[in-house]
């Protein structure tokens, strides 16, 4: 008997998981604002804030960069508490053992992330900030996945009628998943590059787009970089730029282009193989739209000279892109996992699915 057949949808648990994911998204935004405002070290102590217990730090002292850093800490505390409750809830009320451990993983990750954020402040180590940013993205993926795994759709014994797909399409889905996986990995690499760029605290390494210092590929000799620095007049993010940072931004641009192409192929393939009404096709189209908006936000980040709100929106766009790709991959996996139980390979015109027992009892 499939475990799903024994499961009952737990509405409060599901909505709490959704809320935790939403608060994680909010937390990512708050963290993005901290870096965008160069405020990461504005509260020099941790876990206290200017010697106060974090929760008793007077709002009158939340000035300048302190506001961004302190609110980030408070939201993080809230997400930590929510994740702890979520993990305990999953452990006690979810009958799937693997979900117990997913909850434990989320709990451990949020604790590690909190400590990492604190160490970044106490040890004054900007490199830790890169890991802090990346783990934050992964944690958002995890909380979003928990929301999916506790959803009514995931727990349903059989897929709704509109989710049934032809066997031929299901075979194609496997190939499509591979493509989505490659795209997801590329997006994750892109997030790592982005986090590294942001933690250099050097502002924009290239101030123009779509060209780079007026060229398709900018000069990065020491003399050229010296000239670029002579003409940079940033009020904040005062570090001079380096050739490495220029190349990093060029890699970021090229990876963005590759991601746009790959998601477009994913959407096109999903449309062709699954039909335009299929939920996965719609999700793939949403993913493509998201990536295009994200590319536009990337351009706007440059055109606005890295305005804090635009840059933070770009960070959030990256996070949602990664989550969307991951959820697409997981949902497609959920559907293609039932392939061995359906009609023979020759029955191309057969219908995927059948009874829930046949579909899921492996």
């Amino acid at each position: 008997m499939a475990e799903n057949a024994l499961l009952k949808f737990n509405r409060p648990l599901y909505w709490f998981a959704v809320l935790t994911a939403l608060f994680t998204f909010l937390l990512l935004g708050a963290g993005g604002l901290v870096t965008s405002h160069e405020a990461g070290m504005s509260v020099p102590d941790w876990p206290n804030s200017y010697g106060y217990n974090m929760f008793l730090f007077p709002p009158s002292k939340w000035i300048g960069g302190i506001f961004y850093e302190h609110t980030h800490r408070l939201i993080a505390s809230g997400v930590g508490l929510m994740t702890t409750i979520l993990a305990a809830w999953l452990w006690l009320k979810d009958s799937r053992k693997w979900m117990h451990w997913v909850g434990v993983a989320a709990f451990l990750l949020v604790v590690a992330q909190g400590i990492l954020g604190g160490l970044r402040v106490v040890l004054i180590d900007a490199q830790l900030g890169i890991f802090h940013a990346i783990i934050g993205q992964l944690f958002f993926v995890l909380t979003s996945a928990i929301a999916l795994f506790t959803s009514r759709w995931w727990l349903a014994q059989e897929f709704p009628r509109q989710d049934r797909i032809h066997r031929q399409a299901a075979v194609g889905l496997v190939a499509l998943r591979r493509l989505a996986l490659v795209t997801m990995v590329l997006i994750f690499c892109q997030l790592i590059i982005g986090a590294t760029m942001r933690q250099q605290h050097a502002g924009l390494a290239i101030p123009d787009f779509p060209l780079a210092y007026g060229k398709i590929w900018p000069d990065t000799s020491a003399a050229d970089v010296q000239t670029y620095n002579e003409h940079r007049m940033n009020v904040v993010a005062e570090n001079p730029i380096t050739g490495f940072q220029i190349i990093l931004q060029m890699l970021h641009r090229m990876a963005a282009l590759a991601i746009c192409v790959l998601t477009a192929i994913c959407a096109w393939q999903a449309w062709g193989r699954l039909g335009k009404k299929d939920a996965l096709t719609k999700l793939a189209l949403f993913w493509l739209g998201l990536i295009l908006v994200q590319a536009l936000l990337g351009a706007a980040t440059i055109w606005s000279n890295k305005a804090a709100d635009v840059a933070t929106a770009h960070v959030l766009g990256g996070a949602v892109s990664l989550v969307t790709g991951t959820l697409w991959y997981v949902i497609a996996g959920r559907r293609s996992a039932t392939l061995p139980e359906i009609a023979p390979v020759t029955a191309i015109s057969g219908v995927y699915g059948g009874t829930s027992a046949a579909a899921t009892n492996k």
Partner: protein
Amino acid sequence: MKKFSLILIITALASVLAASAADIIGTITLNGTPPPEVPYTPLMNDSTCGAMYKTAPTTHFYAVGPNHELADVVVSLKDVTGKSTGASQPPVTLDQKGCLYMPQILAIQTGQKIVVKNSDSCIHNVHVVPAVAGNPESNQVQMSGGPDLDYTFSKPEMFMKFKCDVHPWMFAWVSVFDSPYFAISDKEGKFVIKNVPPGKYTVEADHRKLGTSTKDVEVKDSDVTVNFTLDVK
């Protein structure tokens, strides 16, 4: 009596050495038109800091006079180390006033104390970001009216960054030398490196945006003039 004679001899030697030392003097000129300075918009957007100004102060990356004389250039003798007298020198003061560091370019010797004050009515944090191993990074709170913060550094370093993360437009750049032979050009672009012993030297002029320029000189028993022209590319 012997002790008195010894003191006399040392004093005489010191006088001779001092007399043979000379100053390196010069003027820094900027060639070319620098990019326009930008207003501290984030400062004006801050309710506490913005209230201190009627109009936004601007950056002064290029402190250029009417005749192209360039201030805030750090001039030093290259590769002269182990001569620091910093421990016996008076401290240098770096103030936080009007939510800006004053001055923004300064220089000290290794072992010389730098005192950071907070003359503002708001909190600052003093975040020191060295790039040379041996000069420790630190980040300390400084409340309004709080005690001064003292720093010393043991390794030479050019343009070590002091910043405030509460007000992320606040920067000062402190250069640390292992000798007393350095100066910062004034508003007229002039500098004086005092009491340089006779010898051949390379004089280095460093501007935070324009980079480095060097010239070789020989100091004998009279002052030497070395002028620099830095180019905006």
